[in-house]
């Protein structure tokens, strides 16, 4: 499992490559925990484009990160979903709580818009 982390403004992008199962899930969790110590990060984008396999351990990791982002009233998005992963995600019900985007750029743009809406809501 290879994990690439990028930070762009207040957004953490994690690009996952390889097979996401229970054995590898711990690494993803640890990498996210480390980066999210920076409380300024308000957005998390998971890029799944490099995954050749994912089972329900991946669902657990994604939902765990979603809870983390909710606690800090941030946002989360998923992008570049490979065919081998799509079916598992669909069954999980994740699409009902976390938005999916085709590309990283789109995920960045849409979550930035979401963040602006949230800011305005708070200012009112």
């Amino acid at each position: 499992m290879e994990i690439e982390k990028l930070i762009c403004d207040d957004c953490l992008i994690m690009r996952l490559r390889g097979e996401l199962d229970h054995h590898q899930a711990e690494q993803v969790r640890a990498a996210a925990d480390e980066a999210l110590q920076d409380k300024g990060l308000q957005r998390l984008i998971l890029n799944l484009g490099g995954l050749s396999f994912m089972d329900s351990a991946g669902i657990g990791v994604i939902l765990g990160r979603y809870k983390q982002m909710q606690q800090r009233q941030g946002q989360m998005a998923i992008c570049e979903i490979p065919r081998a992963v799509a079916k598992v995600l669909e069954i999980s019900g994740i699409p009902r709580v976390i938005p999916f985007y085709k590309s990283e750029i789109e995920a960045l743009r849409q979550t930035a818009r979401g963040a602006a809406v949230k800011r305005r809501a708070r200012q009112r």
Partner: protein
Amino acid sequence: MKSQSYMKLEIPSRSDNEAFARVVVAAFASRLDPTLDEISDIKTAVSEAVTNAIIHAYEDRVGLITITAYLEQNKLTVEIKDEGIGIEDLEMARQPLYTSKPELDRSGMGFTIMENFMDEVKVYSAPGKGTTVVLVKEIRSKKELPSS
């Protein structure tokens, strides 16, 4: 020997065997010439059952997992057996989202995925003795697919 096309694999319940177990079953199933989607379904279901044996059946110790697979015509059967703690309430265990280990980021979707990805899922369990999960899938061999 149950069938001419048969294999039995024994591995310790270590998490780095999750990938190994699914690769072996996929290699075994490949003689039915399955599609990539079918291989992906089989790998995912096997991974769920093997992971359950590792984290639920044996919890903090290392025990033996026995995987048996056989082919009859175009039907693949895979049995994943452990001698771990067993399951008290099978009906509850199989419910979507039920997990006894939410603290481990488990989603409770393992059995649901097995049921969605395979044609048949049978679970036999005796508390204190262990659990056997039987997964069955008919392979629509590529050779038999309509050429449309």
